[in-house]
């Protein structure tokens, strides 16, 4: 089938929720930190003081982006570490107060598996259900909180279906019961406005590679006064709260990337949303037995997630790849697994529909032609796979 192997000259990358290319401006700012301004920020000579200055500049950039104070920002090796630290650190520091955590069933595995690790140590965790669009109900959070609850952790926006959570409302019910709120904002930074004060966020995880920064760098925001233990023990870096020689180039890249991403958000988001809506509408119109996963309006501007019945996601991905389109079935981390997405299942999708789901996540480099190309190619791919499939509308009729 030759029409299925024609690659376009320029590949279409539509998996920005998995990772993004580092922006050239960001690489440029990182470069001198490798071999010239390479000092260890903990040392005291001039070379090292330069490194410290760039580090603190980046801390300020991150703080500004989320409305925090610089001394509330702690650099980590990425979103996963930030989530692990937030959850395990709060748990360890509040042992005397309680042993119960409230989270949702659609969190990223960085949160879910950190919670499972705590359960093995005897902590109790409530995994709240979501509605068909993937939203957590603040009233359900309120009900779940007990005298023993030490943390509520609900993500700002979901990585698979792009659903935006009512974080401010959830923070409010948590605070009414004296419980701090952690939010995994890895997908939200640069995509929706985040202000830790007005939203009532006490801890927030972010990751540079999701918004044009480098992989392996992230941050945890910790509101002043929040009780949290250390996760990485060792040297006195990050005011004694996160040990390990700082990844100076990565942190410099994070700072620049978050500054650019938040500054450009007002212009970028509507453009992405328009492309997103054209994609969603086009796919629903041209491909029968297709439904939209996630929320129709409370959704990230760059997220398209659709379920095609009777076909399986990985084979869609590989055919798209042969056609030069990079996409995903869910979170990249689980591409190797056989289980249907826990997020789609939590939204009530039957496993066989979940298996046939495709995620396209747009980025600033995507063009209208990219959208046209996907809309022209994807119906053929689905048709071809449906022809191979023993499942069919008749069979389910």
């Amino acid at each position, binding site marked *: *089938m030759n029409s*299925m*192997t024609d690659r376009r000259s320029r590949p279409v990358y539509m998996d920005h929720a998995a990772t993004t290319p580092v922006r050239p401006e960001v690489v440029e700012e990182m470069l001198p930190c490798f071999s010239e301004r390479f000092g260890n920020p903990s040392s005291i000579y001039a070379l090292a003081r330069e490194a410290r200055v760039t580090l603190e500049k980046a801390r300020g950039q991150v703080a500004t982006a989320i409305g925090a104070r610089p001394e509330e920002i702690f650099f980590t090796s990425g979103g996963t570490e930030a989530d692990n630290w937030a959850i395990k650190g709060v748990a360890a520091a509040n042992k005397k107060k309680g042993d119960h955590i409230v989270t949702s069933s659609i969190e990223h595995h960085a949160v879910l598996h950190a919670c499972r690790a705590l359960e093995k140590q005897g902590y109790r965790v409530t995994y709240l259900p979501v509605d068909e669009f993937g939203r957590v109900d603040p009233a359900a959070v309120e009900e779940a909180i007990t005298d023993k609850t030490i943390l509520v952790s609900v993500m700002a926006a979901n990585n698979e279906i792009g659903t935006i959570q009512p974080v401010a409302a959830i923070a409010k019910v948590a605070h009414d019961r004296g419980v701090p709120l952690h939010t995994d904002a890895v997908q939200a930074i640069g995509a929706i406005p985040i202000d830790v004060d007005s939203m009532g966020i006490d801890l927030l995880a972010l990751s540079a590679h999701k918004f044009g920064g480098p992989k392996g760098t992230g941050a945890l925001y910790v509101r002043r006064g929040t009780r949290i233990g250390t996760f990485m023990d060792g040297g006195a870096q990050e005011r004694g709260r996160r040990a390990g020689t700082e990844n100076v180039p990565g942190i410099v890249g994070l700072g620049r990337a978050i500054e650019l991403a938040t500054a450009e958000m007002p212009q970028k988001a509507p453009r992405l949303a328009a492309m997103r809506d054209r994609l969603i509408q086009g796919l629903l119109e041209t491909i029968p037995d297709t439904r939209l996963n996630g929320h129709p309006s409370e959704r990230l501007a760059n997220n398209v997630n659709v379920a095609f019945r*009777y*076909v*399986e*996601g*990985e*084979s869609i991905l*590989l*055919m798209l790849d*042969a056609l030069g389109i990079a996409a995903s079935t869910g979170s990249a981390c689980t591409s*190797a*697994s*056989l289980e*249907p997405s826990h997020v789609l299942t939590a939204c009530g999708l*039957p*496993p*066989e529909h979940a*298996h046939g789901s495709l995620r396209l996540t747009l980025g600033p480099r995507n063009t209208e032609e990219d959208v046209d190309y996907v809309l022209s190619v994807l119906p053929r791919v689905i048709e071809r796979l449906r*022809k*191979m*499939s*023993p*499942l069919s509308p008749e069979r389910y009729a």
Partner: protein
Amino acid sequence: MYSEQVMDHFMNPRNMGEIPDADGAGEVGNPTCGDIMRITLRIEENRIVDAKFKTFGCAAAIASSSMATELIRGKTLDEAWAVTNRAVVEALEGLPPQKLHCSVLAEEGIHKAIDDYRARHGMPTANGG
């Protein structure tokens, strides 16, 4: 991730489709796990003269079905029965560990289709039916 053979059988599957009024048919897997294979056979004088598949599943599942049908075409029923999942994997130049179950599914599909034919003809089947 996948060998060239897997990619070739996935992108250009052999024997895709369904034989009308097949002499033997077998379906294995279930949609919950994301894998269903349907094998249909045309059998003449105890020999498989045509084999087709329809598969809902990943690239490995599609390639395994394609390769399995290739391997059994022209074989006697006993010869075809002896085509193991290992033979399918070898012919595909390997499968990733987490995808080996796809080749098992292909073997099971063939067995089920052959058993279906045998049952229809009053011959002894694997599950004693």
